[in-house]
């Protein structure tokens, strides 16, 4: 009993409140997305629990049970068993290839009784735990190559397995751990190169290669010209030229990769981002309809349950990946602002919580939570407003789906549980 009191006193209720609001607003929007004005179903009506809104209600209920379980378990359990949990989900990812069920072209689901579980969703949480465990090991230094290598190994094994089961979207999420690593001392050159690679990648899609070559050449000469006389050594000049040359090679490589490595539908998703009118009927359709739904919302929206675009199936996957469209259409710019604010608030709050941890494990894990949530938010909302390619990942706490709701809740509440016990941690790194 005493333990329970302690939990309720030390739990960060602000985060819990943000979580409850997100899940509540999310469910309201799932209900709006499936709402049929000719046959409105409410809790208790026959068939209600066959709808996504009804099923999500069940998922929310089970999530509450899961959260209670997480809060009851000893906070040291997660640190102690971090590698074991990681290992378990690696095993699950492998087992998908044997016992996995195929849903929507992806081979990443495991059927358990009446419902399906996607191990990939949970692997993100497991990886965050394992990373925190490894980095918090004394004497680990992320500027050392050996540690960088081990960390890379931990991060890359799950997405490679996930990619093999054709779940590209989830695999990409693992790139978000760069944020965590950057915070924990990874040299800035890594995220910097990562961002420049993405920038170069986008540029190489928009402009023909020769224009980028000229641009790179001019940039390199400019840098060399600006360099102070005492820095203008052969070594530095060669370095700049070398980087520019590598970038040029990369651009050539991108062209080649786009045409030879990416699959047709992936290639189209990227092209749509650059040219919204490309392939209006097929690939462009989703993005166009999503933008129409959000754009037609106006300042104040059409009113709850009054959306025409989301309700009448113009927007595909409206209760899962494109749930943000319902918000945009029915609640307008003000509603979108609230949701963006909700996520930004949650992210900044978790950063604040992570920074106040005494244990490095807790802090690193906290940043893992932040990284994953941020990536999902950025990509999911970004694709509905045409700023990101269409990558099928859910909006945390909003999108319909048991696996995603469970995994995000577990991810967040493990951290809140550890945070609640932060004063009991004696060691300070």
């Amino acid at each position, binding site marked *: 009993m005493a333990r329970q009191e302690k939990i309720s006193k030390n739990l960060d209720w602000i985060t819990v409140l943000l979580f409850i609001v997100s899940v509540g607003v999310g469910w309201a929007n799932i209900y709006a997305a499936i709402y*049929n*004005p*000719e046959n409105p179903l409410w809790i208790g009506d026959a068939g209600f629990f066959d709808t996504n809104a009804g099923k999500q209600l069940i998922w929310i209920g089970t999530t509450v049970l899961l959260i209670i379980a997480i809060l009851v378990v000893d906070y040291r359990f997660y640190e102690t068993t971090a590698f074991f949990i990681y290992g378990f989900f690696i095993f699950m990812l492998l087992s998908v290839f044997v016992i996995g069920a195929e849903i929507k072209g992806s081979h990443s689901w495991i059927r358990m009784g009446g419902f399906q579980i996607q191990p990939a969703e949970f692997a993100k949480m497991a990886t965050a735990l394992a990373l925190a465990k490894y980095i918090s090991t004394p004497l680990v230094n992320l500027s050392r190559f050996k540690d960088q290598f081990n960390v890379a190994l931990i991060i890359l094994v799950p997405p490679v397995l996930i990619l093999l089961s054709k779940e590209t979207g989830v695999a990409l999420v693992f790139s978000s751990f760069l*944020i965590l690593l*950057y*915070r924990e*001392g990874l040299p800035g050159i890594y995220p910097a190169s990562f961002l420049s690679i993405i920038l170069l990648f986008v540029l190489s899609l928009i402009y023909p290669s020769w224009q980028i070559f000229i641009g790179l050449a001019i940039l390199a000469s400019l840098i060399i010209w600006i360099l102070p006389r005492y820095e203008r050594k052969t070594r530095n000049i060669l370095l700049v030229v070398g980087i520019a040359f590598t970038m040029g090679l990369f651009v050539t490589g991108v062209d080649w990769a786009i045409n030879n490595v990416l699959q047709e539908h992936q290639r189209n998703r990227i092209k749509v981002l650059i040219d919204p009118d490309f392939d209006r009927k097929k690939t462009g359709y989703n993005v166009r*309809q999503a*933008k*129409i*739904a*959000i*754009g*037609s*919302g*106006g*300042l104040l929206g059409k009113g709850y349950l009054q959306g*025409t*675009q989301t*309700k*009448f*199936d*113009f927007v595909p996957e409206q209760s899962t990946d494109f749930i943000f469209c319902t918000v*945009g*259409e029915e609640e*307008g*710019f003000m509603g*979108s*602002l609230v949701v*963006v*604010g909700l*996520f*930004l608030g949650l*992210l*900044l709050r978790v*950063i604040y919580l992570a*920074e106040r941890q005494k244990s490095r494990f807790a802090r690193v894990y906290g940043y893992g939570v*932040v990284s994953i949530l*941020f990536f999902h938010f*950025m990509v999911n*909302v*970004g694709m509905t*407003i*045409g*700023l990101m390619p269409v990558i099928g990942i859910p909006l945390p706490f909003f999108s319909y789906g048991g696996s995603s709701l469970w995994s995000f809740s577990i991810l967040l509440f493990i951290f809140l549980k550890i945070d609640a016990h932060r004063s009991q941690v004696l060691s300070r790194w």
Partner: protein
Amino acid sequence: MEEIRKRFIQGFFILIALIYVGRLFYLQVIDETYKLDAENNAVRKLIQVPFRGLVYDRNKKLIVSNTVVYDLYVTPKKARVADTLRFCEMFGITRTEFDSLTHLAKVYSPVRPSLMLRQLSRQDYARVQDAMVDYPGFDFQVSALRTYDSKAMANALGYVGEISPERLLKQEETGEDYYRQGDYVGVTGLERQYEEQLRGERGIKYMMVNSRGVEKGAYKNGEFDKEPIAGKNLITSIDINLQAYADSLMQHKVGSVVAIEPSTGEVLAMVSAPTYDPSLLSGRTYSKYFQQLNLNPMHPLLNRPPSAYYRPGSTFKIIQALVALQMGVISPGTGFSHAGSPINCSHSHPVASDVQKAIQYSCNPYFYQTYKRIIYNNNERNVFKKSAFGLQKWDEMVAKFGIGQSLEIDLPNEKKGKLPDVPYYDKMYKGELRWKFSNIASNSIGEGEIIVNPLKMANVAAIIANRGWYIRPHLVKGIGKVGQIDDKYKEKISVGIDRRHFETVIGGMVAAVNNGTVSGDGRMSDIQMCGKTGTSQNRHGENHSIFIAFAPRENPKIAIAVFVENAGSGGAHAAPIASLCIEKYIKGRVDRKAIETKWMNKGYPLNIIRTTPKTDNAKNATAQKDSAVKKVDEELFLTSSQTLPLMGADKPNAVKIPMKPKK
């Protein structure tokens, strides 16, 4: 170091959030195009066609109404046809038609209903209704079909048909956007003239649809919907009994009967023979019958009363007499003998010792001399100048009778006819002052270059009946419950000739009927008809028989013009028909049954207009056979074969797919 990195991460998150908020603000608040796109996506405009207004005759008898018919719609995705052969048999279509119809529907939309077959009658509908249970995906929708209760006035009423591409194009040019492809619209006659009143106002219903086009209820609870407003009814001035009677008299004949109530200008009857059944052109049978009617050498689709061209013949002598009397070039007692006239009479008659006798016997030399006096009634010394000046004055006076002018009747395609003027002859003789009276003398007896139509001549009869004025002839006397007709149909128009001159002329007309050019069949013992015969010469066969009249002599109730093509002289053929119509209208019955039967059954050898003009026109003994006459003849020929109602190209209207709503 770590503090800075934390700040970087926080800053990065805030930056992304700000970019997204900015983008959202642009999409949702600034850019308006998405709102329009959303409406195009999810809101569908449904047009509800109102019932077209009904048409009544002057005694409130219904002559045009709407019949309920059924359109068959198919929704390809739901459609299941187990036995195609039986289905085709049931609807009377071939297998190929069936395939093309279902294919078109599928191309249009697999989930939205497409129009497959139009206008199934109530009987057909009842016959197939039970069997339709076996064919899911086929639905009937009620629509209306124009029904004409009387065949007697097809041309004046006109018909309703699918809008032609030409008319759609014209609409586009004028910036209107009422009609869309596939709409029904009045094509000719009153249906066209009063289209705007008859059509009513279309209703609009906004429906929400999902991404597959399935309807999902009213948009904003029908806030923007508009109920259709039924078209206004027309009360015509037609007496349908008289119309039907005149029509039956004109069977086996080609020509026109136009009857006008002189005091009001209201058209009592307007027959164009041969006629056709307008119902055949208003439904599924349109394409079949239109072609048939259009190719008919007798041009049943030509509304002869306002649109055909004839020379007025001797009926024009009344106008000559009135103009001459008004100008004072003759007095009622002036007489002329046959001597000195190049134009002679083909019949022998007592000397025309005064105006009345001249009209009674339709004396050609008399009017030659009269016309000569009219033309030369000025002080010019040069004979050419004298002629030109005289013609100009004559034109002014004759034009007031409506000759060569539009009477502005409420029908489309009214032809003005022709009243030759100075520039006309200048052009014909290739220069000014190159012609004189002798060149235009045939105008004196209504031949030459004067061209009229039956409507005009009926109006001339009304002018005489009124002793000097007329109201523009019109067919509609009331629109809707309170609707008023145009003020121009109330205005009395004077022809500028003294009343006493009319009394003089009318005396001649009475004599013509009782003891003159009119044959015995055209006389009534109980009603005094006043009339004038005419024989319109034409190069394409037997003369046209013309008669204009009014009755009774005092307080005339009816003025009439009868034209019978290729029938011969006016007194013998057109006059009996006119007399029967007058008797029917005034007494409500016809007592001269034997005469009625005789004229009803009489027919004339069909004279189909040839493409090569006859060289010999020997019967025309009096007309000057100069090039001018030939030229007018060519025009007569051209106008009568080309004044077909303007109609769109025929196209099968059974295969009709509704248009997608305009963006």
